[in-house]
């Protein structure tokens, strides 16, 4: 990554030197300025945690050490903030915008509220997470690496809504032939875990940090049994074991072991497309579309510096999980994987949402 960055900056430098770019590449300096990092969520969610983690580090790494403040613009399931960002143009490079899977999914599903276009924006950083599904002790005893013995059990699951990130677990369980009834309307995965702990729900999933913080103690106490992770992507785009949970099989492995579950075909393609959009590239930071290249480079270099800190692996694993952080061209590639779902996959999911939950997005 460092090399490609270097190369690109050299190229940009050469072009500027050759006088092809009209203004001379001004030195970017943010001294005394305040950078606003706008998050289309409230102060309470995972995205707030993510931005608050990066903000002070970014402040140190940007030229001129500007103050970086996180601003919250919640509403309409994050589409309000994203629609607002779509209207913004480059001013002095002090506006940064963060999105999450909850912003990506409505975009992918053509939600009527979406008036934003990801391809208009310039990504500068992307990061991901993983997820773990687990069962209660009683049903967990029946789990043998395949879901074959779980097909006759009725499961209940506390869900935030079928069109949210919960789409990924719900579709996975359905592909395994499991009978999972979602109880909609909970406010966060923490509430879902509480429902599981009270015995009202008997299956649950958490993102990596939620699982490590709240569910591992349940597993240790024998009250929960991990079932599968969603996995992680390798460099070639294959699903491999999640590096944070190398001992837990992936959904792909469980699916292969389960009768009637296919790891090819339209259901699998659809699941994988939405998994990629929701987990390995869950959160992205953007600059407005018309931002000059030197400002983009300044941000890229700053995020690069952040990820190269000696203690980065250590502090980030505790706060946002140990998953790769993509910078510069890496974040562009990440954006491509996160926002390109082919029409068949999209249509499959839309049909499934309608048939299984009566959800129509228009």
């Amino acid at each position: 990554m460092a090399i490609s960055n270097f190369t690109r900056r050299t190229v940009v430098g050469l072009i500027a030197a050759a006088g092809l770019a009209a203004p001379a590449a001004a030195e970017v300096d943010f001294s005394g300025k305040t950078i606003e990092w706008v998050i289309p969520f409230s102060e309470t969610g995972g995205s707030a945690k993510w931005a608050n983690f990066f903000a002070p580090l970014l402040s140190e790494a940007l030229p001129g050490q500007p103050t970086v403040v996180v601003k919250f613009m919640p509403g309409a399931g994050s589409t309000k903030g994203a629609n607002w960002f779509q209207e913004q143009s480059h001013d002095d490079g002090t506006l940064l915008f963060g999105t999450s899977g909850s912003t990506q999914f409505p975009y992918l599903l053509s939600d009527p509220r979406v008036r934003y276009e990801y391809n208009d924006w310039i990504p500068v950083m992307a990061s991901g997470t993983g997820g773990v599904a687990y069962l209660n002790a009683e049903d967990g005893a029946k789990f043998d690496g395949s879901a074959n013995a779980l097909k006759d059990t009725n499961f209940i699951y506390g869900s935030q809504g079928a069109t949210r990130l919960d789409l990924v677990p719900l579709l996975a369980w359905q592909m395994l032939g499991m009978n999972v009834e979602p109880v909609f309307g909970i406010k966060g995965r923490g509430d879902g875990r509480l429902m599981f702990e009270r015995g009202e729900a008997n299956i649950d999933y958490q993102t990596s940090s939620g699982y490590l913080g709240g569910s591992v103690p349940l597993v240790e106490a024998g009250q929960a049994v991990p079932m599968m992770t969603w996995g992680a992507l390798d460099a070639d785009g294959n699903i491999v074991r999640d590096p944070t949970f190398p001992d837990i099989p992936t959904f792909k492995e469980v699916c292969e072991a389960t009768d009637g579950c296919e790891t090819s075909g339209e259901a699998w393609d659809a699941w994988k497309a939405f998994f990629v959009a929701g987990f390995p590239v869950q959160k992205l930071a953007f600059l407005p579309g018309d931002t000059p290249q030197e400002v983009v480079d300044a941000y890229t270099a700053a995020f690069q510096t952040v990820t190269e800190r000696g203690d980065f692996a250590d502090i980030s694993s505790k706060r946002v999980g140990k998953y790769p952080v993509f910078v510069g061209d890496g974040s562009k590639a990440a954006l491509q994987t996160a926002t390109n779902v082919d029409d068949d996959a999209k249509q499959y999911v839309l049909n499934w949402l309608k048939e299984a939950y009566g959800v129509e997005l228009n």
Partner: protein
Amino acid sequence: MEVFATALPALGDAWGLILQPIVLGYLVLGVVMGLAVGVFPGLGGIAGLSLLLPFMFGMDPILGLALMIGMVAVVPTSDTFASVLMGIPGSSASQATVLDGFPMAKKGEAARALSAAFSSSLFGGLVGATFLTMFILIARPIVLAFGLPEMLMITILGLSMVAILAGRIPLKGVAAAGLGLMVGTIGEADAGGSLRMATYDIPYLTDGLKLVIVGLGIFAVPEIVSLLRQDRSIAKGASLGAGWLDGVKDWFANIWLSVRCSIIGVVVGVIPGLGGSVVDWIAYGHSVQSTKDKSNFGKGEVRGVIGPESSNNAKEGGGLVPTLLFGIPGSGSMAIFIGAVALLGSGDIEVGPSMLKDNLDITYSIVWLLALANVVGTILCIAASGGIAKLTTIRFTYLAPFLFMLISFAAFQSGQNFEDLLALFVIGLIGIFLRRFDWSRPAFLIGFVLSNPVEKFTNQAFQIASFRFRKSFGEGMEYVFSPIVIVLILVTVVSVILGIRQAKMIMAEGNVQAGTKRAPLIFLLVIMAYLIVALVNANMIPDYNMTDKIIPLVIGSVSLFCCVILLIQMMRRPEGDAIFADKEIAGEDATAPHGLWSTLAWFASLIAATWVVGFILALLGFLIAFFRIRAGASWQMTLILTACGIGFMCLMAGALNRDFPPGLLQDLVSLPWPLK
């Protein structure tokens, strides 16, 4: 015993951590900052904490905790100023305080009300912390015993307080609560995402109305407008009666009430998912039921202040249990708190189930820092209350423009849309008419606050119950009728029966004279029209989304039924019957020198001007025009007051890093902050 063997040393360690000069210094710093930002209704805790976040990174954990807890702890204390002095409910924790606190201020007893409230808060905070020190060790199984049916029953218990607050005509109270519930369902349904009384073309409505706006609109706007029309000071005759020492004595005379309400606060606060929305109403209901002479409630009964205020600080302590033990925040500020704790030190403190095992000393430090912050905050508040109470002797015309400024800004902060201001105006209008025709405003607010929990818990409990019943009948019954549920049902039934018998004596709006039929009848018909439209709208939701339509349909039908009976009664009863209560017939409003509409037009003009030139420029024009024309102040006075208002606004918003509502002008040209 084994439990205590680990608890006592941890408690000792915790005090060792807390009682360092530097820690106490940070705590006091946090408290002072919390009091400063607590001035803004409905903003305090969250805004203040967000401001502190960047500094938490890598900070020594105990210092960071002291700073943050100092700030969070005083918000339910400091927003008492707004609710007692101005009738502005600062947060859901101080809504019930408005009912008797503000009438006391009007009687010239502001200092007494404030110091009674603060003493109760202080005491409640300490009772809460003591209780928690023991309870937190055994809390986990107890918290887990509160499933969805139990939470639904607590919500219904909260709703049953409507019976006490319904006013002279119980049917009107029920209808008002029903209307509040229906207004609460506006927007996208939690469960299936169907839209109720909203469209994607008006994105603002899809998120529903915010509590801050409804609280300000229902309580603050009508009072501000009414006082402004009368052109007097808040304290009648501009004189202050009982002082702050009387308030402390009042609290001491009612110490057992204070103890009971503190326990109510901490216990309800412990239950995750309910938060503070019901606590103060349950405490208020208990205060009413346990008072022999109920005739003063709603007119300035000090017990009506002591009860809710004892419970709301104790609740903060209780709210630590779900936050620390389960990692599930009980409120918005607790959610940021959790995030911030992860940034502290080397990031080793993980809020959640491991908290008791690995960090019991930190847990105890948090509990007692909270209690200590309460003490510091309360002492500062009591010290200030005598002076601040003098605000109630100022001619209200000089206060009103600042209050319009504050509530507009607070409303805008809740969603950062221009529509927030419009919503405030519209809800304010509803509040004005509810007040005028003696429809219970507390009942409306209780309905609104509990609308979402009622709907959510009903749907979820129903779904899980039917799941259990499918397994076996016995398992279903066991789930639905747990011992806790049965006890709660009994408490609710008793409270409703007592409430109905007592409701007639509690007149939150005073003794409102009845007048002609026409105006009250028109208001009733307008409400009925809204209910009918809402019912038709809910009925259009397809049946597979039954979870999204069932509550609006049932509640709407019940409310409409009440309204139909009211309509029949109105047709049959003679003019002058209590059912035709109308504040414009006799009393303060009727004899006020200024009219309703001309007064309201000032507020409307601020909003309209904001739409055109943005908030700060609009405010500049509004303040100058108001002081010159309405208040008749000299140019010198006008300019000084205007400068103070604008300066204060910019200072606070600048410090908290908040924006102002932009207007059309800002779309055309880009202006520097604060004009942008």
